[in-house]
């Protein structure tokens, strides 16, 4: 199972994790080793089974549609790295002058 530098960079971008050039080679080797493990699964005949969802195969319980959550706005904002006027603050996302 060989990964190209380009593939690894694409995966890292999908995961939004910056990977620096120096660690690229060692990381690639580690990932290739782990992906190599997966090849054992090809030998298993899974034509007669369906994919498992819940180990006990239970249906999802339902509850009455009632408001149960308290308003924790202030509590939740306390943990935010940057807040302004009760809102999460991030760098500008929309370009342009307006």
């Amino acid at each position, binding site marked *: 199972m060989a990964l190209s530098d380009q593939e*690894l960079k694409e*995966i*890292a*971008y*999908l*995961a*939004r*994790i*910056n*990977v*620096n050039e120096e660690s690229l080679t060692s*990381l690639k080797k*580690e*990932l290739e*080793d*782990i*992906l190599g*493990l*997966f*090849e*054992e*699964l*090809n030998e*298993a005949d*899974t034509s007669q*089974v*369906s*994919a*498992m*969802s*819940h*180990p*006990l195969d*239970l249906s*999802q*319980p339902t*509850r009455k549609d009632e408001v149960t959550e308290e308003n*924790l706005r202030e*509590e*939740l904002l*306390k*943990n*935010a*790295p*940057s807040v302004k006027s009760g809102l*999460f603050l*991030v*760098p*500008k*996302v929309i370009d342009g002058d307006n």
Partner: protein
Amino acid sequence: MDLHKLSLNQQLNGLKEGDFTSTELTSHYLDRISKLDKELNSFITVTEDQALLQAGAADKRYKEKSNLALDGLPIAHKDIFCTKGVLTTCGSKMLSNFEAPYSSTVYEKLDNEGMVMLGKTNMDEFAMGSSNETSYFGPVKNPWDTEYVPGGSSGGSASCVSAELAPVATATDTGGSIRQPASLCGLTGIKPTYGRVSRYGMIAFASSLDQGGVVARSAEDAALILEAMSGHDSKDSTSLKLDKPDLTKGLDDSIKGMKIGLPKEFFAQDMPAYIEKSIEEAIEVYKSLGAEVVEVSLSNINLSLPIYYIIAPAECSANLSRYDGVRYGYRCENPKDIEDLYMRTREEGFGKEVKRRILIGTYALSAGYYDAYYLKAQKCRQLVANDFSEAFKSVDVILSPTTPGTSFKSGEKADDPIEMYLQDIFTIPANLAGLPGLSVPCGEYEGLPLGMQLVGNSLEEAKLLQFAHSYQSNTDWHKKMPNI
């Protein structure tokens, strides 16, 4: 009096009889933590003030004869369980400043029974690891020999209970994170059936595998606490709609005539001779108690490791996408735009092993690979579960070693992920099938403890604990504690 030498039931009786107060008991443990934990590093946070307040409240209830079921008993919580107003880090730089705005159901249930929180225990970052070397807060040491690892990911919980800095601790298990450290630290650890213990407020790693449980000094202690933690919770959609089981009533029942299965695939592997010997001795104990021992086959069990290393990273990559530096947790300095904020926050906030697993999971779920990896793994997982179902038609429990060896030295496996992953080769199958599993100490090699694993059928925690307790009533391995 050496209060820390008393079992949980003895401590509870002492509190009820007024032999000592919860404040005395709690202070005793807090003293031990301050004296002994500098070297072990088993706690990330010690909640001394809060513990003494809770203990004082318990003492008041005893005086007023309005005491709760577990009133005044101290406990340590793995730092994966959210505890309102208390630092909850999951062993990560990403959450190194996170004070949980609400408490996990596990914490609340034990709090409602009057238990006193001593602190939050160290762990592998986001529960990913088998040696407790991946914690942002530094490695945890094994009290049996501080050059050795305590196992992971619940290494802090195992280390502190083994060193008797806490009488019992909560823990979680995704692929062996309760049973493996219990084995390496000479403790009894149980992971219940998937869905038995609520995952609400338990920071998610791999949601279809994660399950809360306990590390304790005996099956009797573990039963008492696991029972209190269990039960349906409408805040967790995967929580089983069942009342909490009675786990203590049948502990002393005889196992005569019950059947133990030995999976031939496990025993066909190369095992160190000392493990084979300890397991054989344990089997002899069970035979002398009237249990019947038969061979069973779990023919797909060898697929467990690759299945796990697809499913767990895939679910982790989805779960950990929430750490984006926007709403809580770590944020990188001076992001130049939103993309840079995400990319550097996650580069700097996560450790090496966590990033490795996110990348593997992202790959396995990415377009073009989903069917080949994730879907294939979920199908193979069903094969493993079917093997267990078949085996449990003819046996009550399945016995094996918990780990492929005793503990190893810090740093020994840190550079080889696959070597580290092999630590969980015997424990992973129970997570894949959602079954309850338990580890009990069954021997020692060169001064380090080792454990045997019992896996039970769905919802049969009581039977597992009965098997463990009957073994512990006839052996002394669980009574051996490290000299520290």
